[in-house]
């Protein structure tokens, strides 16, 4: 039989021990709860900001133009490095130099960042060496699989991951991923468990689909590069627009830059197609002639006396490249007569000329979704001199952007509607939810469909019989206008006799336009005429573009 005392004594001690534990638990868990919980939280909780990936930029067919991939920036904790020479050798394999001077100067430092970024595979291979004292901070690096292609449209991203230029800037709020904080707990061995399972990829920035077609962009890049080098021009650009929707299909400028490493070429970051203004010269005659036809000031068959090449207005001689006498309005456009256009402009009058310049979208931003767009310059009619009407009529004393010019030509191509040019087609989340869809947006009607059709015929004549003959494309009807504009010399404030801008803006197929193409060469050396410099570039770009887009030929001799 078990004695009650023999049972009671150990039972008493066990009960007493339990009581001590309970009291201790009471003190720890309740009495000093806040203080101890705070100390524990500091020791085990890790609350850190998590960078989510920036969205992709895709071309109109979903081909990647830029995307972000994770990269790792290594750092060294000198106090934990076991074998410094081995660490130096390991990093040298990835072209990363270990700053020995900093380590020697600060031996107690716990964090010495290294200058360089590596990918996940390189990071794993370094980790597997188990050298000790090596760590990595994560970041995202923008990758451009197509290199410089479309750099002026894509733009660049700064070190802080925000867009600085191009679509990267305008769509920055969509492209930037959500800023989140990840809470995790560490155990005694430093292992982590995240508090809540968050799929960071689901929070990454939205994908932006552009209206740009990668292949058309490549064609434009190749041709603008060749033209820029051949002409030894200061700048050059080729823009392709869909005149029916206003979408920009390609926009290539020279000089260009590498968006992944733009520090060395900051001057080229500016997008000349939207930011640079220049006097358009004869391409502007489209506005004067359209206004004159619309207001029935002249008809295409009316005859204009072109003064045999020199016409003096307010003691200022206006000259024609080709000396002409009595020619029709149609021929005025064909031979690009400044005198004929000046006389038509004077018939039209100051107010109506000004009204139509505005109607075609000049002097106002087109609304293109690229940053830094200029409005253009045109003085208020109240400040115009007696010479203004005639010379503005053929594109002097007015400054416009390349996008304004192509947009005005597209309005003639589509039957008289001025559309808002666009480079962003749509924006979708990673899960595919549509956030924004930029459809066709009509700004206003510029001219009636009948006048637009008449203007198209005149533009076709320019290419068939006039100054734009080198713009022809076999098998296709082409309409367009050349423009050889003298540049203003900033030193003398007079028109330069050495610096010119050669441009050509055309539509193809002209009778059922599918593409508007603008070519510009700023300060071409040697031959500076648009007819021989810009028109052939149009021809090359257009012939490749129509074949790529499988636009059927509309003239008999097509191949």
């Amino acid at each position: 039989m078990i004695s009650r005392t023999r049972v009671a004594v150990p039972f008493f001690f066990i009960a007493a021990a339990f009581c001590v534990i309970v009291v201790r638990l009471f003190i720890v868990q309740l009495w000093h709860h806040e203080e101890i919980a705070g100390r524990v939280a500091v020791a085990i909780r890790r609350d850190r900001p998590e960078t989510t990936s920036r969205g992709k930029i895709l071309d109109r067919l979903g081909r990647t133009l830029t995307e972000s991939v994770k990269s790792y920036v290594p750092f060294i904790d000198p106090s934990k490095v076991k074998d410094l020479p081995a660490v130096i050798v390991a990093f040298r394999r990835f072209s990363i130099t270990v700053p020995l001077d900093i380590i020697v100067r600060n031996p107690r430092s716990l964090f010495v960042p290294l200058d360089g970024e590596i990918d996940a595979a390189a990071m794993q291979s370094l980790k597997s060496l188990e050298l000790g004292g090596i760590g990595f901070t994560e970041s995202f690096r923008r990758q451009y699989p197509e290199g410089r292609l479309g750099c002026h449209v894509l733009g660049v991203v700064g070190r802080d991951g925000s867009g600085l230029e191009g679509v990267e800037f305008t769509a920055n709020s969509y492209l930037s991923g959500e800023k989140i904080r990840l809470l995790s707990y560490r155990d005694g061995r430093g292992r982590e468990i995240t508090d809540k399972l968050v799929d960071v990829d689901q929070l990454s920035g939205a994908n932006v689909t552009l209206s740009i077609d990668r292949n058309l962009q490549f064609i434009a890049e190749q041709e603008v590069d060749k033209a820029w080098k051949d002409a030894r021009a200061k700048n050059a650009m080729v823009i392709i627009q869909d005149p029916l929707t206003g979408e920009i299909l390609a926009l290539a400028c020279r000089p260009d830059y590498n968006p992944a490493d733009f520090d060395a070429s900051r001057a080229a970051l500016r997008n000349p197609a939207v930011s640079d203004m220049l006097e358009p010269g004869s391409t502007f005659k489209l506005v004067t002639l359209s206004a004159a036809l619309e207001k029935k000031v002249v008809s295409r068959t009316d005859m204009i006396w072109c003064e045999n090449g020199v016409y003096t207005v307010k003691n200022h001689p206006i000259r024609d490249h080709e000396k002409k006498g009595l020619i029709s309005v149609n021929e005025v456009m064909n031979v690009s007569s400044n005198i004929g256009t000046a006389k038509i402009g004077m018939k039209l009058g100051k107010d109506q000329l000004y009204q139509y310049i505005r109607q075609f979208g000049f002097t106002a931003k087109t609304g293109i979704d690229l940053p830094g767009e200029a409005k253009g310059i045109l003085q208020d009619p109240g400040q115009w001199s007696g010479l203004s009407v005639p010379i503005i009529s053929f594109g002097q004393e007015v400054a416009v952007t390349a996008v304004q010019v192509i947009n005005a030509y597209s309005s003639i191509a589509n039957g008289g509607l001025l559309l808002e040019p666009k480079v962003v087609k749509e924006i979708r989340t990673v899960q595919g939810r549509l956030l924004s869809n930029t459809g066709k947006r009509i700004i206003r009607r510029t001219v009636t469909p009948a006048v637009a059709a008449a203007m198209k015929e005149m533009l076709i004549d320019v290419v068939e019989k006039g100054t734009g003959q080198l713009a022809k494309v076999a098998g296709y009807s082409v309409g367009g206008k050349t423009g050889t504009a003298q540049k203003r010399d900033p030193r003398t404030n007079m028109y330069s006799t050495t610096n010119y801008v050669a441009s050509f803006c055309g539509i193809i197929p002209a009778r059922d336009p599918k593409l508007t193409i603008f070519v510009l060469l700023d300060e071409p050396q040697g031959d500076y005429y648009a007819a021989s410099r810009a028109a052939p570039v149009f021809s090359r770009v257009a012939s490749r573009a129509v074949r790529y887009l499988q636009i059927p030929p509309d003239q008999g001799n097509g191949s």
Partner: protein
Amino acid sequence: MTYKYLVWLVMAALVVVFYVWEQTQSVRLGYVVDTQRRECERWEQSNKELRVKINCLISLDRLDRVAKDKQLINPPQDRVIYLHD
């Protein structure tokens, strides 16, 4: 009477042991989930990097450069057949 107390004590101990075991398993599972998540992230990242590499390798600019290096010449426009995706 004492036997009854002992039974209760053992049962209480079993409940406590079960609770501790369940908590330990939960923490262990947390580690497994986190490890798998990191592994998954790594594979996804690796997949993304490989896709970027593919895009770089088939980029038009690179193909053009390779063609030039191999001294290939541009064909006449009427001999070009455009392939669509």
